[in-house]
């Protein structure tokens, strides 16, 4: 049940400056809300984020490939019905099935990765201001009771239109 301070900015550079400042003064728990993806602008301030999703994608593709191959070859072995004089275990058509399942599972796993990392869906009430889906950039700082004023001040100084103190549930 900590407290947090949310500052709403009009300009990104203001917000980033504020974030930078806060970070430097030791507030590590900084969340930025924005209506658009900010990408590398944020990375300057908050540091680079690792891309774990790609492992999921890879794993998914890998799994998919095997599932597809197993499905195509394995089920052919379960009920042997020769067709077209071709080998029951034919590689060429299996590749196509595996290809598709590779992608399918890749997509699924990527989705899983996203869901896992972005912690979505989450319908719990969280700190949020609808303005950030329009044109405000929010800066949320977890603070202890003592630092509220400091942070508020810093934010205001950096150009925030509005600063509120909110309680985290």
């Amino acid at each position, binding site marked *: 049940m900590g407290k947090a301070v949310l500052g709403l900015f009009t300009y990104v550079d203001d917000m980033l400056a504020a974030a930078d400042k806060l970070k430097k003064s030791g507030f590590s728990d900084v969340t930025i809300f924005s209506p658009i993806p900010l990408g590398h602008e944020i990375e300057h301030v908050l540091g680079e984020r690792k891309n774990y999703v790609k492992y999921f994608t890879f794993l998914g593709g890998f799994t998919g490939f095997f599932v597809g191959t197993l499905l195509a070859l394995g089920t052919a*072995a379960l009920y042997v019905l020769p*067709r077209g*004089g071709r*080998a029951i*275990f034919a590689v060429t058509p299996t590749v196509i099935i595996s290809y598709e399942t590779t992608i399918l599972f890749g997509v699924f796993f990527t989705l899983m990765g996203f869901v896992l990392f972005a912690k979505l869906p989450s319908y719990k009430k969280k700190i949020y201001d609808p303005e950030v889906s329009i044109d405000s950039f929010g800066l949320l700082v977890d603070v202890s009771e003592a630092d509220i004023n400091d942070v508020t001040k810093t934010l205001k100084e950096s150009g925030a239109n509005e600063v509120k103190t909110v309680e985290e549930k």
Partner: protein
Amino acid sequence: MGKFLDKILERFKIYRIPGYYEKYDHKWTMVIDLDRCNGCEACVVACNAENNVPVVGKEECGNKRTLNWIRIERYVEGEYPNVKVKFIPIMCQHCGKAPCETACPVYATYHNQDGLNVQVYNRCVGTFTCATYCPYDVRRFNWFTYKRDEPLNQQLNPDVTVREMGVMEKCTFCIQRIRAAKDRAKDENRSIRDGEVQPACVQSCPTGAMTFGDMNDPDSKVFKLAKSQRKYKLLEELNADPSVIYLKRVMKDGSSATHEE
């Protein structure tokens, strides 16, 4: 689980190479001597009677939706008076490398242990792919539920199912007769004799143009006939490896048909 995998591996050994099907129990084959065939269409009616092929009526004939499993194609060469007419009965060729079999997504058509290309009507979902892939245009589709006027339905052969609307059907080489012959042979504890199985068309053919037998049996009549120099397979260049072997018609070229001394 281990046993299961062993089984799969064992199958893998057998079926990984194409050509395994050549080791089958039988390889039913038909030899059609085009020099004997006179195009009389007795085979067509025989097939209709044996295989419960419905009559579709004039309008549907006009829509080219007859369901005859065998047809006699007629080709004309030359102009009057040097006209040459050639007949060829065409039914399912029971291809060893059948294009239709690979096309079916649900295994409704496949190659069985007798070297037959068989159609499992009840499995068919009607994607039409097999018929489109068939180079010989021998597959027939049940466009409707065909009614047989009472009491014509009393003629229906109980050994052959009446196909439902929406399924593909085709010549089976009268598989019910093969089955009956096998049944007899099993009762008598012997193998099937050559000539014991005769599909309806072969049985009826007045000129004896058609011969049916097991190609895996070197003493069979078809085996001997297939050694003829006149043998050819229809559209052989497509490499579908048909089980129907045609013997070429002996005929003068269309151009020199009349005036020779």
